[in-house]
């Protein structure tokens, strides 16, 4: 120890870790563990991914066949693949919980803006992992889902066609696409991910967990070593047990569309598409949003406008730390808490519709879609009502304009049957009018008081 310390001065580091504390404050401690859980699932992905690489052979004749042999012949091959798939889905679940919890607790406020942005990048990289890994077994469903998914980049202005060809390795999805996705999935994305997660962790270790809003140092703390670290470890063990239970008893997923990985038939570029081609559940909202856009709008193509809207939404999400001026000054910012909930309800409604909840599966006729929207709207409104009641009653929240706008859109589209975009414009307009009126009234009362 002395030998290393004389050369690399590690004692200050140990001292730092010994004194490091996790704030115990006004909110539930559990939110602090979600980043660690996400990282745990990522480590599982690395281990099982490397194991899968030992049998997987990318290639027109071998991709599908090697996965088939892996799951039928190789001892425990089915288990390794099942763990990899389950862990992928659970990683996305815990990542979303982590992201929304840090968002609503305003952990992104100074001095942690870069931590938010790095976490945001990890979110995008994780979606990239999900998208690229999906194609690798080279089965029918993955082939068509990837065709649709990659086609979206065509709508990028100017660069669209070039991007599409770079992604696909040609005009259409072919085995060349698989080679590119393979390189991305096992080399490019992991390297990028490890780099960004290194930064993310460094910042968190350096600055500690964010204390509750309104405080700069928490009133009380829990020792990081050993108290918090041991709790982390125990939780990871519980996660592993959950993961293995799922993987063993449901080796091909829970059987929900968008969350199953039965190998099915081999991809055939010359076979026609068939109904029920959907992306994984975490892309369903985007899939549904694309369907809600008309073919042409304002002289542009529907998908172009849709991509623009998605880019704006994702862009706003990235720069929240700079938009939230009240949190910037370490004050409560109820509008941004409400924004987080509005985002969740917005995504919920689209996802439910993408799932065809309340519709006959595979049926695309307008009355069935209208009925589905109706059922999805009822569920989303019920969820929204629960959210508002709990927030108002338990957490004494009083700011519900954006949640209200999101629910108004759901009601106008699902219950009244107006087009989704029209409903969106109506509710965005309503929210805008109310917020502007509040702002003007607030200024007027301040100036009259002053």
């Amino acid at each position, binding site marked *: 120890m002395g030998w290393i310390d004389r050369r690399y001065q590690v004692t200050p580091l140990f001292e730092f870790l010994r004194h490091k504390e996790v704030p115990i404050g006004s909110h539930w401690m559990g939110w602090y563990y979600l980043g660690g859980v996400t990282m745990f699932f990522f480590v599982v992905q690395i281990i099982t991914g490397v*194991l899968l690489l*030992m049998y997987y052979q990318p290639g027109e004749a071998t991709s599908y066949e090697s996965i088939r*042999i892996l799951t039928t012949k*190789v*001892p*425990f091959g089915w*288990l*390794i693949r099942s763990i990899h798939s389950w862990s992928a889905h659970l990683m996305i679940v815990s990542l979303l919980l982590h992201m929304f919890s840090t968002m609503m607790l305003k952990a992104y406020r100074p001095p942690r803006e870069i931590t938010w942005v790095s976490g945001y990048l990890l979110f995008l990289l994780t979606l990239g992992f999900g998208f690229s890994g999906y194609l690798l077994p080279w089965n029918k469903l993955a082939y068509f889902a990837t065709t649709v998914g990659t086609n979206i980049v065509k709508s990028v202005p100017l660069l669209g066609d070039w991007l599409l060809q770079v992604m696909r390795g040609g005009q259409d999805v072919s085995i060349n696409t698989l080679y590119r996705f393979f390189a991305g999935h096992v080399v490019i994305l992991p390297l990028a991910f490890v780099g960004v997660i290194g930064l993310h962790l460094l910042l968190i270790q350096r600055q500690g967990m964010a204390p509750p809003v309104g405080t700069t140092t928490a009133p009380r703390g829990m020792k990081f070593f050993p108290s918090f670290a041991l709790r982390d470890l125990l939780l990871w063990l519980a996660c592993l047990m959950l993961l293995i239970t799922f993987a063993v008893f449901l080796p091909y997923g829970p059987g929900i569309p968008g969350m199953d990985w039965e190998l099915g038939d081999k991809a055939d570029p010359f076979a026609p598409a068939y109904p029920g081609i959907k992306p994984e559940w975490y892309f369903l909202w985007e899939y549904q949003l694309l369907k809600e856009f008309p073919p042409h709008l304002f002289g542009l193509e529907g998908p172009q406008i849709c991509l623009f809207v998605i880019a704006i939404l994702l862009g706003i999400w990235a720069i929240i730390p700079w938009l939230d001026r009240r949190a910037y000054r370490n004050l409560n910012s109820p509008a941004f808490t409400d924004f987080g909930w509005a985002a969740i309800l917005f995504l919920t409604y689209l996802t439910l519709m993408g799932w065809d909840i309340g519709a006959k599966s595979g049926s695309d006729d307008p009355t069935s879609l209208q009925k589905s929207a109706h059922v999805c709207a009822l569920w989303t409104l019920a969820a929204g009502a629960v959210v508002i009641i709990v927030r108002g009653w338990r957490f004494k929240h009083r700011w519900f304009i954006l949640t209200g706008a999101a629910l108004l859109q759901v009601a106008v589209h699902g219950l009244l049957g107006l087009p989704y975009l029209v409903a969106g414009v109506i509710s965005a307009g309503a929210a805008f009018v109310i917020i502007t009126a509040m702002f003007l009234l607030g200024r007027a009362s301040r100036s009259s008081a002053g």
Partner: protein
Amino acid sequence: MEEPSPSDSRTSRRHFLDIILGASLLGWITSVAYPIVRYLKPLPQTGPTGPTHLTRDESGKLEQNKFVIVPVSGQRVIVLQSQDQLYAFGAKCTHEGCTITYLPGQSVMWCPCHDGRFDMNGRVLSGPPPQPLTKYIAKKQPDGTIVISEQHA
């Protein structure tokens, strides 16, 4: 009989818990490691076993080069012709496992990796190989095809 003191019983309780905890940790590690160890063990090679007939192509190569290397039950076997006599040996050098070749001019088998030489009985003539080559039986059938089979002691 002596009553155990309270501190004794506490230590033994702690000891008992330590044993339980240690055993479950061991069990846990085993249950995680076993599937991985099994997974990493390669699948058994599949393919034809038993006596092997040389294909027309392989016989042609033998005619031309005086030797040919063919698979027999998943092993590399060198078949060679020396003074109208057929020989067959395991082609894996007993030194570091390189594939040997035949030098017709000198009637020796030679491993180019570390200059090992074997005679027509598979015995080491010179160089570092520690063992003779494995012998196989090469027979010409009445119809002219060549059959290679393992030598059973």
